[in-house]
């Protein structure tokens, strides 16, 4: 069992200023305190330029803080000697599926990170076998990565991260480039890994529908953490979201318009199903 009180990533009083950024302009991140717990699913949302990608990069030591500290499984990201081990504990998936696959076959791609760990080849074989069966990639192992659909490419990238047996996966808009089927594919995969294997997830997204499945939604604005809570708390708070120039799910937005029109809809509607059920039960009791 995963111990959900255990902390995997801890960031304290975190600030980051890109060099070359004008003195006057505010830092990309400032004063951010956040911990990621084992097995937790966090959705990270916020306007363009609010610091989401920067925060992920600080989490896996692609950047080091200008102020404050990040610890991953207890290791500080300032500790250069342990950078590889930090990246193994928390791997990153990017937006564009085409930029992260490097090898000539899917199998080699999944094994790529493992080769760098200088594991015995029997262990590599075993892990590639395991993750490809978890992710349903068995039949694609000999394919060239560029021949796959976008959703398949993202699953291969996830498999490569998963083979490192991380405690946490960081995903920066992993579905932005995918068609609806590919998107479902990736979302279901990640949900499965989170619920069945206790993998912690930090998922940056501009789709409010994707935040519904999180345990906790964290909101950034202009480099600061301005709100966090359950999906019902955050997605249900349209005044918070609208104030940031964001929108909630279609169900929340429509429910709030209908309440203005006098429909007596209960609070806490965030999915289409909840909205449809509530409207239908109103119609029946009319």
């Amino acid at each position, binding site marked *: 069992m995963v111990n959900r009180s255990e902390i995997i990533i801890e960031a304290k009083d975190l600030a980051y200023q890109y060099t*070359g950024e004008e003195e006057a302009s505010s830092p990309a991140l400032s004063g951010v305190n956040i911990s990621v717990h084992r097995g937790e699913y966090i959705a990270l949302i916020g306007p363009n*330029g609010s610091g989401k990608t920067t925060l992920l990069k600080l989490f896996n030591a692609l950047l080091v803080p200008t102020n404050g500290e990040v610890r991953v499984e207890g290791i500080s990201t300032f500790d250069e000697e342990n950078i590889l081990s930090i990246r193994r504990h928390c791997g990153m998936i990017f937006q564009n599926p085409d930029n992260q696959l490097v090898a000539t076959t899917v199998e080699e791609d999944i094994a790529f990170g493992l080769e760098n760990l200088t594991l015995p080849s029997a262990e590599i074989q075993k892990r590639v076998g395991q993750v490809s069966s978890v992710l349903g990639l068995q039949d694609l192992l000999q394919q060239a990565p560029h021949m796959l659909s976008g959703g398949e490419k993202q699953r291969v990238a996830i498999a490569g991260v998963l083979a490192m047996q991380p405690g946490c996966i960081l995903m920066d808009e992993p579905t932005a480039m995918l068609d609806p089927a590919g*998107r479902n594919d990736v979302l279901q995969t990640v949900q499965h890994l989170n619920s069945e294997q206790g993998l912690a997830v930090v998922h940056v997204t501009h789709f409010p529908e994707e935040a519904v499945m999180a345990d906790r939604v964290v909101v950034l604005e202009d480099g600061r953490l301005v709100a966090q809570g359950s999906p019902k708390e955050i997605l249900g708070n349209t005044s918070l979201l609208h104030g940031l*120039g*964001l929108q909630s799910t*279609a169900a929340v937005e429509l429910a709030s318009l209908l309440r203005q029109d006098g429909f007596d809809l209960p609070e806490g509607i965030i999915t289409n199903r909840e909205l*449809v059920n509530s409207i239908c039960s109103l119609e029946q009791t009319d």
Partner: protein
Amino acid sequence: MFIGTDRLTHTYMPGTPYAKKALDNVSFEIKQGGFALVIGRSGSGKSTLIQHLNGLLKPTSGRVFFDGHDLGQKGNELLKIRRKIGLVFQMPEELFFSETIFDEIAFAPRNLGLEETEVQTRVIEALEEVGMEAEQFIDRHPFQLSAGQKRMVALAAVLSLRPEVLILDEPTAGLDHSGQKILFKLLASLNKKKNMTFIICTHHLDQVAALADQVLVLQEGRLVMDGFPQKIFGRRSQLIKMGLSPPVTAEIMADLAERGLDVRSDIFNLEDARAEINRLRRHRVK
């Protein structure tokens, strides 16, 4: 015929074992001032199709028309024609090559041989159109931007050409809600006031569906549907079977209809959904 194709077929790497027929006998027409969406699963041929529409790819067979010209027949004139057809690629930020955002956006107008003062006016105007404050951004390096900001700069770089036709490949990927709103408001106004023609490939129909007057559906390189949005999105089960998803408001309305409520489901935005649900209630009260 304003812009369109006649029996267009495109095969990548013809005559090799890797030959791939990406477009198969595709014929359609888009009227001047039209607003067309091209939808289809990943790999269905969308990007291949739009690269023909501005002459970047040459047909294997068939023809591409623009404003009375056959693009395949044009040698030297092709460049001049292409200036009237702006194309924003799927991952435009990967193609940035200038040292500053100013130069990136100024590149095309300078290429037209415009005076530097006119170039400057156009750059500032284009940035304003995409909702970015010129002063804050013009001197920065294009890579020093967040993902969403890069998208907007790429769009500004094409708008500065003042094209007659604007083709956008997945323009909303990575944009936050207010960025999407700015984008669609801008497209709607260019379409209405300047009669600019739009062709947009997208998986995310929620906001753009209401602007469109034509939808083209590609499946494995073949054009399988072409018609008004109401008609195309009305074929819900067919689209879902193809791995595509209708706009979310249409989904909610269809779910309500399925539960026995007397509502239309060809509804593509929140305000129309709100009105339709209200109509139902008023109807009952009477």
